[in-house]
């Protein structure tokens, strides 16, 4: 008795790591013990994982001889095992089968009809071993999902019913009600700001790049506020912005056109729209992503309407105080300072401000200031103030520095020399930034190096005192020219050639880091296939 008990214990202990290892990965195939070999099971899990990876729907399978009521059993199964948003579950008991489909995207494709007439027959028809049966089921799910995703590609984006759609979802990732609400919101925005704000989810790019696809979607779809489509329904240079998402390889693109290029600058797209939208896309929260997109677009359109499109700019002065070239020179100088010291300088001059913290708060509130280390100087007619952001700025700009700079700059501002004031601010601040970091560590290194190098001459002098050394060679006693090489042959033993893929060093494409690098403002544009000019940015999420 005792013996059997201990045997049982050993068996249990042996099982323990096995079940633990399985629980680590997402398990989707559940069968009675012994039905599938370890190997077969791993292969099926891998196939299920592939389907989930490529189609976004997780296929599950369970077979339990003891299950009596399949529907409640399946509900429990889903609660305990299914974590994905979209999934299909085929459950079997001794007598019957049951399909459960969860998630909007999965439900749209895997209807009851599809489950019973497309997916189940291949499963029931295979009469071989259980592994082949389950594989047939997985393949059928894959085929059904694939058929659904490839069908709409051929359809033109907006030709459905002649109605102009601002939000389009060809994948069924959004709920009907959410899509309608978003469409309405974008339509309203477009009318208010006289600039089309569009969003679209498509299954694939049909061989184009995301940027090309987005530009063509915009132009050939007849979008763009105020542009009249030609006979083919194509527009050129209409005002608008489009956020396009392609699910096949998880591409996204933002394309701007007409007034959209002005309102949505490169800097604005990279630093204002994308940081708030991309995290939602990455976590497949498409409704939240589009809402964030609509919010950011509204804010940027409002700023543009107020005459200050969101762009990289660190010098804010009243209209006419600086010429365009002076403004550019000042921004470039500040960009250079930022490159070398990692501290961004901001110059705000607002003669009408009564409270000097208001313009600074507004700057930060509108996210025009994004750097972690910044020195913001704000002045009005009567006085000035500093705000230091980040430890690098705080540690370097001492009170006496701030007072001295404020003194000089306000004097110049009062005398009406606005450019001189900006120059003085930038130059003095640069001096302050460069003055303190006299690297104590470098000096320390220099002294250590001096201490070490000093050993060289003194050791040489010390060595003069010791000339008694044992000799270990007999070079002096080798009779000159007596060394005769009687054999000198190199026998090739073997040759081994290895091959590896040639990697050409590539320079990473820059410009992604917020605000860094030299100063570039405005929008870069390119020409689309319809001849229209577009701005924007694309990438993967």
């Amino acid at each position, binding site marked *: 008795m005792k013996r059997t008990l201990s045997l049982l214990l050993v068996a249990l202990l042996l099982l323990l790591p096995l079940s633990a290892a399985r629980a680590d990965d997402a398990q989707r195939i559940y069968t009675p013990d012994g039905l599938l070999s370890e190997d077969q099971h791993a292969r099926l899990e891998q196939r299920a994982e592939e389907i989930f990876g490529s189609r976004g729907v997780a296929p599950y399978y369970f077979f339990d001889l003891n299950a009596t009521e399949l529907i409640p059993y399946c509900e429990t199964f889903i609660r305990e095992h299914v974590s994905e948003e979209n999934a299909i579950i085929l459950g079997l008991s001794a007598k019957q089968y049951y399909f459960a489909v969860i998630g909007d995207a999965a439900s749209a494709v895997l209807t009851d009809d599809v489950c019973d007439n497309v997916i189940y027959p291949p499963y029931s028809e295979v009469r071989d071993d259980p592994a082949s049966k389950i594989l047939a089921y997985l393949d059928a799910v894959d085929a059904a999902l694939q058929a659904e995703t490839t069908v709409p590609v051929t359809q033109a984006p907006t030709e459905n019913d002649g109605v102009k759609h601002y939000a389009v979802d060809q994948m069924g990732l959004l709920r009907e009600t959410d899509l309608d609400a978003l469409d309405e919101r974008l339509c309203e925005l477009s009318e208010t700001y006289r600039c089309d704000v569009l969003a679209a989810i498509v299954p694939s790019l049909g061989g184009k790049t995301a940027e090309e696809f987005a530009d063509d979607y915009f132009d050939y779809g007849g979008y763009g506020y105020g542009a009249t489509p030609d006979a083919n329904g194509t527009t050129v240079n209409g005002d608008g912005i489009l956020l396009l998402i392609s699910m096949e390889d998880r591409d996204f693109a933002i394309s701007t056109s007409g007034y959209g290029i002005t309102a949505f600058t490169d800097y604005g797209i990279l630093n204002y729209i994308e940081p708030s939208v991309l995290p939602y896309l990455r976590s497949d929260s498409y409704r939240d992503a589009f809402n964030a997109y609509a919010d950011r677009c509204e804010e940027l359109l409002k700023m543009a309407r107020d005459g200050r499109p969101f762009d990289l700019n660190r010098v804010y002065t009243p209209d006419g105080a600086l010429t365009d070239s002076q403004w550019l020179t000042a921004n470039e100088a500040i960009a250079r*300072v930022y490159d070398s010291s990692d501290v961004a300088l901001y110059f705000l001059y607002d003669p009408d401000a009564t409270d000097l913290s208001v313009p600074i708060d507004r700057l930060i509130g509108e996210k025009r200031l994004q750097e972690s280390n910044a020195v913001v100087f704000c002045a009005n007619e009567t006085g000035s103030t500093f705000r230091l952001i980040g430890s690098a700025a705080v540690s370097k700009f001492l009170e006496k520095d701030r007072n001295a700079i404020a003194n000089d700059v306000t004097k110049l501002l009062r005398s009406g020399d606005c450019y001189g004031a900006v120059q003085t601010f930038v130059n003095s601040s640069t001096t302050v930034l460069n003055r303190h970091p006299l690297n104590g560590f470098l000096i320390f290194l220099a002294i250590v190096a001096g201490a070490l190098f000093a050993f060289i001459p003194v050791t040489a002098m010390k060595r003069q005192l010791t000339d*008694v050394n044992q000799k*270990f060679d007999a070079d002096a006693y080798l009779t000159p020219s007596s060394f005769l*090489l009687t054999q000198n042959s190199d026998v090739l033993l073997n040759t081994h050639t290895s091959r590896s893929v*040639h*990697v050409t060093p590539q320079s990473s494409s820059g410009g992604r880091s917020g605000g860094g690098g030299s100063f570039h403002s405005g929008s870069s544009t390119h020409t689309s296939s319809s001849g229209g000019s577009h701005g924007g940015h694309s990438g993967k999420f």
Partner: protein
Amino acid sequence: MAQLLEYKCPACGASLQFDSGSQQVVCPYCDSSFSPQSLIDYDAFLKQDAANANSETWDKDPEHWEKDEASGLNIYVCSACGGEVLGDDTLASARCPFCDNTVIMKRQFTGEWKPDLVLPFQLDREHAMEGFRKHLFGKKLLNKAFRSESNVQEIKGIYVPFWLFSSDIRTNARYSGTRSRAWTSGGYDYVETSRYALLRSADAHFERIPVDGSMKMNDALMDSLEPFDFSKAVDFQTAYLSGYFADRYDVDAEKSVERARTRFGNTIGRMMSSTTAGFSSVSLETSTTSEHNNKREYALLPVWLLHVSWKNKLYTFAMNGQTGKFVGNLPLDKGRYWKLWALYALAIGGGLSALIVLLHFLGMGGGCL
């Protein structure tokens, strides 16, 4: 090709086969292939290597003195250190050349091994004193007090017993070397590594490697006196000893030859590996040396020994009695050593710091409008 069938693969040791298609001998296990000639070379080398184990022997002991030759010589025994030296009657009141003790006892010389050669003294006591003065000259860290306070206790001319070893050395060495070349083609990087067996045999002759045969003499001090010009050596005559001490060997030839072996072994090793240039990596696999036409000579070489006492410590200097080469370690002035070090450290560290500060201020201009 019959004899080739017996060859073993130099790379892996498996039996080789002749491939008539490529006219090469191939190893079926490691894919190596060899030209028949290279295998014959390799095999010949291995046989030669095995044969090379046999060195010829060295003569054991030198000849005895003739009876009457030794008649004018005495053995002086130091009562303090036990050192024994040979000398004629002129040295009766001498001090011990090893420990500088004055009490020295004379004993009748009764016949010993006779040296083959002697290198007569060419420089005298005055030269030795002069050599000592020059030795102290121009040494910045020499303790200043040593120059003025040190006192030369005794200067002794001694014939130091040396063994001179001459031999033809035959060496076989096998190195393994690799050579690599890399190229890019069709989108791939290729690296081809070829492994070679480098077979080297060489003969070399070493002439009269001197090894100090006196236990009392410091080996390093004697080595430092080299080189001696043996072309001036003459057959031993008792007359040369007159007025000088002569030490007797107490390390025999058999023991001394080991030091000579180490020395020519190192030289040969360096010479051999200098013939393996042109490979990206080379390592020695095996090496054998054998000694032939060995000649061993017992020689007395002239050395001036100076004992200098300073601050209760004895400093020993030696001068080559033939060439005047003067050697001997001198006391260090520690205070001066650290003072100079601090001076240099200050100059170098200060200079570097100044440079850093200068660059710092020069670099401030960046970013200005």
